[in-house]
């Protein structure tokens, strides 16, 4: 009698363990071979019968093609850039991801080849280091420290750090200097360059740190913080989503967004740079922006794809120039961002 009870218990426990194991494992849909093996050639003809990329032939990119799916880390809670919706993840980062993947498979259906995973600010590097994703497109600022452990393609977008305050700006804040006092609290996200930049710009200011910007917005609504700081792009998204806020001040840093890649993934990096260049010239970049962030902001000039971090930027023989001529970022505060001057010191404090 007692034995039987234990056996039943044992059975139930093992069933539970089995369920947990099965539920937990996420297998990549092994569309081995299946998807567009299309003559292993660069026919990234895809939808528009466009120019082909040289970089898509490289072995690193071929590996992605063979896997059938590209795993992309993306934000799920960044309005306008990467946000969960009933139709899946939408936003500018998602559009860029689709355009890049289309450049790999060229079959007009990039969404079937993408597997999105949520990347929060703090886990973008571990995801790449542990091979949990193939690339990270998640409002990911390129900088030297990160470059030590991951690689970057791009930049595919440029923004700058700004401040967001309650509508009406009750404290009259115009720049980080105004927040450089322990009486005022500013919110940002752990592991982000925004937090670091702000601490350097306003060392006396009190800070409150959460794991996502939506928490910062909530805290501001509750009156816990006087300002939130991060890239202007993200702030616009928050204003769009929450309402009751406004973005103030000049941009006080350069934030070039890049595609995060595992360290040493040179083939993929060169290809992605080439592909970004391609979509900039074809107008697809502009279209992607207008469909997403364009709702609240004007479409800017795409940034020049170059960086002092690497010697090689484009695959050999590609059509993309080594030094972009669209380069002239005509934008206001931040840029003298043509070729050089990337993201080393965050101190672009116009003050």
């Amino acid at each position, binding site marked *: 009698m007692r034995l039987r009870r234990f056996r039943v218990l044992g059975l139930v426990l093992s069933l539970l363990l089995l369920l947990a194991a099965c539920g937990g494992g996420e297998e990549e849909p092994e569309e081995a071979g299946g998807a567009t093996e299309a003559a292993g050639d660069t026919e990234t003809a895809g939808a528009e019968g466009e120019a082909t990329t040289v970089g898509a032939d490289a072995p690193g990119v071929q590996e992605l093609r063979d896997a059938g799916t590209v795993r992309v880390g993306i934000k799920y809670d960044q309005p306008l850039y990467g946000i969960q919706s009933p139709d899946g993840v939408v936003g500018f980062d998602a559009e860029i991801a689709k355009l890049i993947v289309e450049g790999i498979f060229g079959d007009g259906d990039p969404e079937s080849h993408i597997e999105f995973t949520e990347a929060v600010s703090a886990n973008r590097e571990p995801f790449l280091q542990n091979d949990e994703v193939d690339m990270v497109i998640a409002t990911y600022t390129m900088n030297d*420290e990160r470059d030590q452990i991951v690689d970057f393609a791009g930049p595919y977008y440029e923004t700058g750090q700004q401040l967001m305050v309650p509508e009406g700006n009750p404290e009259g804040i115009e720049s980080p200097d105004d927040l450089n006092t322990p009486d005022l609290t500013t919110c940002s996200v752990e592991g982000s360059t925004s*937090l670091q930049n702000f601490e350097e710009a306003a060392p006396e200011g009190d800070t409150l740190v959460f794991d996502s910007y939506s928490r910062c917005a*909530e805290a501001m609504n509750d009156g816990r913080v006087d300002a939130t700081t991060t890239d202007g792009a993200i702030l616009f998204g928050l204003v769009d989503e929450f309402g009751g806020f406004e973005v103030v001040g000049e941009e006080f840093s350069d934030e070039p967004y890049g595609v995060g890649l595992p360290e040493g993934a040179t083939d993929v990096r060169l290809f992605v740079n080439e592909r970004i260049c391609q979509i900039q010239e074809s107008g697809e970049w502009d279209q992607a922006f207008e469909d997403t962030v364009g709702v609240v902001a004007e479409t800017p000039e795409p940034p020049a794809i170059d960086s002092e971090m690497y010697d090689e930027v484009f695959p050999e023989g590609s059509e993309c120039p080594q030094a972009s001529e669209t380069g002239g970022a005509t934008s206001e505060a931040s840029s003298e961002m043509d070729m050089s001057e990337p993201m080393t010191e965050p101190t672009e404090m116009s003050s």
Partner: protein
Amino acid sequence: MIQFLIDNWEPIWRAFLLTARLALYSFTIAMVIGIVVAAFRVSPIPPLQRFGAVYVSIFRNIPLLVIFVLFYFGFPKLGIVFPEFPSAVIVLATYTGAYLSEAIRSGINAVAVGQAEAARAIGLGFTQLLREIVMPQALRTVVAPIGNLFIANAKNTSIALAIGVEELTSVSRELGQRQAQIVEALLGAGLLYVVSLLFAGAVFGWIETRVAIKR
């Protein structure tokens, strides 16, 4: 790992002290809650008994993180805004208090029933019974479980990072990310936790031997 601790000693030590204060304050309040709720549960007054039972059911069965977020982001909707550190103290105290009350209650039940009868016979009221007779004995028998709960509570302080408290884990993590030494940073933090909690465990062990009821 040691090098990391040395290089970043100032902010890490500050965070360690904050964590220690958080753990100690919350545990003290939790002990009060634990004793009170346990007393309710064994009292002869039905409404109090029910209150105690409900309290334990709620706070033992909700994940701590959920309580943190609900308290910190939910209460302001009702107009009550507590800053981060007090919020963390309150949340940890209520959570650990539920577990403590169960531990203390089991200690109370371990006290011979004849004691209660004798107390009634000499005319002691319920509160007096608890305060003079039962609690002193009950607490002495459950020092070990209480020690366990102290350690668990101290480790739970790391969850306060969800509401922006700059405790040891979050500070180490942030520093580690900025210097691209995440593993060293967390190992260092882990080391601090282990060393201080081993010490705490030893203290409780000593208390246990000192107050043990000689049978």
